[in-house]
């Protein structure tokens, strides 16, 4: 016998949907399927051909290593990291968050919350499974097209991708549920019922703030909305050690009080440095490895450069500190540079000891690309406002994406290409990498000067 309350809830929700969207309904699932269709077309045209070309040109030994024990370990490590990120992202901004007016007018009503949020949750899960399956099909298809595997690879990749997508989607949803306090629910409906209205509102407001901040190019506002308030290390005191050393002590204290940022940054540097050593010392390593390693290293070093970013945020405001703007910027570079050089060199030494790689060359490669990374981080911190083109309808998103990604691109492409060359020519390239790095730092400080003066209209 049907539950009369549930039937009543469905009727009330249907009435609300009619008022909001009319006969056509919300169209959430319809729009999602269209987006998946676009991903399929785009991935098929560009991604498939690019992946296939990479597999065709890659060294056979490298391709074989992907299916070895090390490859499986790397995949498991990647899934672990992705899962952790999914949970944390879900806590910060859950995947099932309606728009604020919908929360205030419909979610607050005495209708089963699982029912009210069901469409959004379904869209999230279908989207994640579909995206995973598409990526699996892309990878499997490229392997088949490159003649490196059979049809079974495609089937395995599609199923594996879909399952991985589902896993990450559920973890993100669990992260969102965990933000609303402890609970023992074991189903999606139970998790949805456990979401508190206050948390849904917080997440919806955060979405609005971050979206607005990103569109306006206000990276500080976006960062502050995502970052958790600092409460650790209250008893520690910053001590006066003179202008330079106090700035450096400030950055160290800041990292000590945000251990998640410190651990994440150092872990990223360690992982990226291991890949950098491989890319710089093994001629058969694919160029994409060097580019990915530099991209990861850029993000990791940037995590440790909060002081530099805050300085950039305050450009043009009345000065409180007694150091000239650019000199303070240079002081803020010390901690991320040292972290990159020290953690990277230690990793390089371990990798060199575990293989037949030349220790001095391995350490030299990691240390020299650290200057490129610091230069790119400086360029990123002082990138200023987005270009006017970002606010023009058709090309705006592309211009904005380019503006965001420019420093990352500089680090990944210039550093990645130099590392690829290093694998062929050896230590002779290290002074060139150093010079490119110093040029990047110089350009970053030039941007700092430009930003400092730019506000004076």
């Amino acid at each position, binding site marked *: 016998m049907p539950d009369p309350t549930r039937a009543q809830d469905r009727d009330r929700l249907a009435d609300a949907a009619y008022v909001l969207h009319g006969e056509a309904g919300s169209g959430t699932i319809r729009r999602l399927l269209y987006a998946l269709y676009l991903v399929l077309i785009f991935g098929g045209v560009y991604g498939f051909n690019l992946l296939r070309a990479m597999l065709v040109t890659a060294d056979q030994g490298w391709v074989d290593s992907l299916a070895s024990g090390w490859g499986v370990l790397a995949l498991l490590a990647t899934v672990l990291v992705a899962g952790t990120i999914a949970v944390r992202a879900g806590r910060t901004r859950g995947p099932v968050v309606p728009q604020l007016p919908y929360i205030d007018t419909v979610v607050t009503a005495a209708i089963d919350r699982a029912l009210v949020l069901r469409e959004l949750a379904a869209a999230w899960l279908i989207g994640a499974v579909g995206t995973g399956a598409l990526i699996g099909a892309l990878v499997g298809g490229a392997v088949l097209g490159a003649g490196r595997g059979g049809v079974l690879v495609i089937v395995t990749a599609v199923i594996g991708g879909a399952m991985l997508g589902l896993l990450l989607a559920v973890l993100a949803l669990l992260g969102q549920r965990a933000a609303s306090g402890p609970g023992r629910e074991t189903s999606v409906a139970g998790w949805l019922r456990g979401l508190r209205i206050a948390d849904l509102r917080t997440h919806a407001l955060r979405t609005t703030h971050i979206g607005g901040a990103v569109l306006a190019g206000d990276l500080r506002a976006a960062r502050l909305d995502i970052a958790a308030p600092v409460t650790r290390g209250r008893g520690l005191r*910053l001590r*006066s050690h003179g202008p330079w050393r106090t*700035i450096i002590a400030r950055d160290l204290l800041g990292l000590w009080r945000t251990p998640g940022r410190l651990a994440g940054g150092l872990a990223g540097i360690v992982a990226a440095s291991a890949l950098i050593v491989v890319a710089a010392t093994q001629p058969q390593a694919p160029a994409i490895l060097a580019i990915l390693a530099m991209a990861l290293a850029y993000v990791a070093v940037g995590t440790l450069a909060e002081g530099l970013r805050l300085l950039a945020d305050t450009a043009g405001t*009345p000065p*409180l500190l*007694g150091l000239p703007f650019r000199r303070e910027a240079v002081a803020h570079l010390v901690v991320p540079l040292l972290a990159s050089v020290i953690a990277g060199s230690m990793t390089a030494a371990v990798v060199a000891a575990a293989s037949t790689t030349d220790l001095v060359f391995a350490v030299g490669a990691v240390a020299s690309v650290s200057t490129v990374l610091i230069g790119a981080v400086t360029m990123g911190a002082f990138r200023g406002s987005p270009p006017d083109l970002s606010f023009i309808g058709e090309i705006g998103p592309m211009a904005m994406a380019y503006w965001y990604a420019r420093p990352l691109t500089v680090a990944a492409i210039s550093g990645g290409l130099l590392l690829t060359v290093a694998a062929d020519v050896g230590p002779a390239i290290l002074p060139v990498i150093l010079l490119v790095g110093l040029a990047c730092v110089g350009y970053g400080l030039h941007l700092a000067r430009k930003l400092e003066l730019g506000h004076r209209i």
Partner: protein
Amino acid sequence: MQRAQGHQGGGGPRVSADAVAKIIGPVTLLAATSLIAEPGSALLVRGRNGIGKTTLLQILAGLIAPSTGRVRIDDRVADERDTTIRARVATLLGAPAAYRDLTLADHLTLIDATWGRDRDTCDERVQAALDQLQIGELAQRFPHELSSGQGQLFRLALTLFRPSDLLILDEPEQRLDTDKRVLVADLLRARRDAGTTMIVASHDPGLTSALADEVLDLGWDVTASGPDHEGGSAQGAGDA
């Protein structure tokens, strides 16, 4: 033209604005305004919302360039890119950005260190600076743990703590309760009496009467886009 006379002929600079205005396209943010603040004096700026008080303060601090006219701080053009100007002028115009991972005491220590003060006595100075604004017990709090009034006192502490002999403040009394307004008025008066030149925009009659040597009224007429203020009426502090 408003001319604020100094109390003790103190060490602060003489500030003069000669018909400064700020016009962007068709919009007049600040109509032509002239003033003189003598060393060690306090000039209070008043006027309706939108008349250009904050814009005037930004120009006086050298943060933005006037469209017309010129501001001099002693013998130098007001321009914060000039290190000499930066060393003399402390400004509270809106909320300065704070580090989310530093406590209140850490912020003041950072300021103290970058101005090259004695390291051994830094902690005492920091505590005294917080105590004088009655937020000494909050020294180990992070900025996001303050109420809006405590936040304003913290911002005032940052501004007053750095060395300066010209203070430019935009509504320092905002968000403060009555007792704290009196406290801030007393502190600012002490700074003025010690020789610091002060230019303050304020809507608070108490602060105005406690501090002002001269009042510059930019205007109250809501229909006006911004009158010229050269030669406008001067009011003594007691009339505020």
